[in-house]
């Protein structure tokens, strides 16, 4: 199968890259463990979060309308977007109506999902991502490789080169403090010149009409505090019913994401600043379809903490770009095939079904089970290679007939014993590339058992 396996093998072929990537992310996972352990009621918090999400999603239409009413009362303008194209058109129209030329944007996976930046840039608008990691990948003309740590695939030396080229830092400089100061100066200039600020939304609260944006760099606040227009883009699943629910999620989010007790900034927005405009764009883009699917509904619980990526032994060793997706890693391998199953057919198989993601998930999404269900869906859609389907059908036919199974097993063991090594370990045998096959015994268990019991 091409797709993820090929790209993963390319990442692993880079000397030491996979080991270093794995260790960096395992370090984050270990920090998460420590932070979670500090909370005796951690598992109850997960239960509560999953229950609140299940309730919200079951009553989503009502809560969305409640949110819209309350947000309007606070003076916000609320827009509804059916898909990415509508979202992009709405944002562009707001910006064009105000003759906006420069936009600063804090991290928003939704705008990545909708490919907003190229859409605005094509209309002559400059978009600057202000999250440091996002700015780095933007300068490198790449996409984020992780939803919380967008440039985790890059070493500081590579960032030094990039900054030398784009920001004029000293050649060969790779001191993180120096590079961060340079980025800070560069971004301050963009903040001051911006005509509009864009943010994502971590949690929108139906009962108040307000919303919360979590950042560690304060870049969302900076980006929307100076310009007269704030546009907040949110997937419709970001809703929670009450302000009192927020505590549950804020306690889970940062601990799961980075092992912090709370994000440095949890900024609450209730309507526009005096004399300014606040636009909220509610985006469906396939979410209501997932809402209608029993098997996949729980994937809407996702709060984009990235814990499943940090814990995934496959993600850690294959890098985010190997998924070729907006959201990489375990949860992305559920979300992305929902949008384009043919393009992302290899993703549900980029998983050893170890289940670590399901156990780490703060909102209790049964991620590895949904990946398994996706494999079934791929077969139904004809997206599993025929050779594999045939192999499984033949296997099943053999296993349904004990005599045939016995015969096939005996022949297999004999072949393994008699065939010359170069045939067994040919290029057609991926098992044997780095591994030995087991040494076949003379007799199977069943044959020996029968002999011993004299039947």
């Amino acid at each position, binding site marked *: 199968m091409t797709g993820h396996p090929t790209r993963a093998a390319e990442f692993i072929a880079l000397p030491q890259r996979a080991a270093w990537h794995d260790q960096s992310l395992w370090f984050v996972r270990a920090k998460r463990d420590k932070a979670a352990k500090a909370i005796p009621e951690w598992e109850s918090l997960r239960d509560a979060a999953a229950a609140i999400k299940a309730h919200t999603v079951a009553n989503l239409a009502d809560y969305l309308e409640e949110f819209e009413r309350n947000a309007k009362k606070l003076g916000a303008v609320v827009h509804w977007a059916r898909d990415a194209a509508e979202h992009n058109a709405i944002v562009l129209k707001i910006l064009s109506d105000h003759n906006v030329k420069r936009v600063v944007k804090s991290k928003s996976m939704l705008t990545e999902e909708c490919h907003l930046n190229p859409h605005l840039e094509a209309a002559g608008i400059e978009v600057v991502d202000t999250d440091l990691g996002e700015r780095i990948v933007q300068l490198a003309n790449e996409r984020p490789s992780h939803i919380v740590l967008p440039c985790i695939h890059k070493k500081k030396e590579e960032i030094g080169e990039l900054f030398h080229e784009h920001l004029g830092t000293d050649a060969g400089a790779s001191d993180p403090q120096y590079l961060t100061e340079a980025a800070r100066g560069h971004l301050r200039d963009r903040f001051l010149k911006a005509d509009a600020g864009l943010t994502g939304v971590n949690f929108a609260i139906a009962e108040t009409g307000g919303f919360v944006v979590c950042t560690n760099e304060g870049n969302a606040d900076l980006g929307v505090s100076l310009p007269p227009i704030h546009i907040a883009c949110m997937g419709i699943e970001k809703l929670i019913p009450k302000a009192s629910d927020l505590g549950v999620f804020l306690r889970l989010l940062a601990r799961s994401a980075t092992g912090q007790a709370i994000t440095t900034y949890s900024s609450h927005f209730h309507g526009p600043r005096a004399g300014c405009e606040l636009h909220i764009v509610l985006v469906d883009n396939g979410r209501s379809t997932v809402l209608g699917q029993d098997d996949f509904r729980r994937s809407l619980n996702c709060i984009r903490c990235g814990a499943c990526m940090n814990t995934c032994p496959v993600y850690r060793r294959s890098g985010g770009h190997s998924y070729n997706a907006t959201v990489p890693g375990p949860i992305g391998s559920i979300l992305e095939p929902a949008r384009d199953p043919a393009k992302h057919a290899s993703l549900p198989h980029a998983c050893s079904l170890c289940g670590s993601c399901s156990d780490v998930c703060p909102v209790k999404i049964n991620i590895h089970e949904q990946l398994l269900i996706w494999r079934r869906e791929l077969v139904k859609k004809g997206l599993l290679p025929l050779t594999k389907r045939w192999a499984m059908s033949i296997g099943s036919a053999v296993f349904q007939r004990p005599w045939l199974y016995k015969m096939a097993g005996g022949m297999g063991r004999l072949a393994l014993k008699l065939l010359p090594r170069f045939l067994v370990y040919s290029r057609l045998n991926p*098992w044997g590339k780095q*591994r030995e096959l087991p040494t076949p015994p003379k007799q199977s268990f069943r044959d020996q058992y029968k002999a011993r019991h004299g039947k």
Partner: protein
Amino acid sequence: MPRVGLFIPCYIDQMYPDVGFATVEVLERLGITVEFPEAQTCCGQPMANTGCTEAAAPLARRFVEIFEPYDAVVCPSGSCVAMVRAHYHEYFHHDLRYDALRPKVFELCEYLVDVLKVDKLPVRFPHKVGLHQSCHGLRELRLGSSSETIVAPFNKAKQLLELIDGLELVEPARPDECCGFGGTFAVSEEAVSCLMGHDRIADHLQAGAEVMTATDMSCLMHLDGLIRRDKRPLRCMHIAELLAGRPV
């Protein structure tokens, strides 16, 4: 006397018969007579995990027919038991026969700990042993607490290994990371699979393990394949072999 059916996974039957006999011996020493129903072949997991549920369904139905007469079914594989207990519901919607069989299917360690309440084992194994936590046993059967969940720690396999005279358990730095076998994943994602395996082996070696054990022979087949190719000083033995008192 309960009537206990022995469920031997197909690859153990064909490639690792002694793991099957070690299982029989452990149980017989505890006074349990087992029967091996010869009609059994495969639980259907390879098909199910590839998404080929139509190919898996007849194997699931066969399994229930073959094992429903028994009071208990015991198997030296957490993964195959997890297939039956956690994934067969797809093939049996509110089926009384499956519902009756489901709670009677046990992985070997959980049968020894939960049903037979084993608190001593008359065997000796004077070696440093690393326990590899096979994922399906750990996270689907909950044979132990996983490192992700914040619960009081427990581990049924470890509990049994601690009863073995002379056996010294060593602790890898990452307590329960996947070895990368994953069924067809081992070949379809060969590069990632082998790197995961190499990392587990290195972790157990740095912890000082002479022998790596697990509740699943499939993980060990993959790890042993890497170990033998690279000639690393580490042996792989199924936990049933240790519990039966097999030497290295």
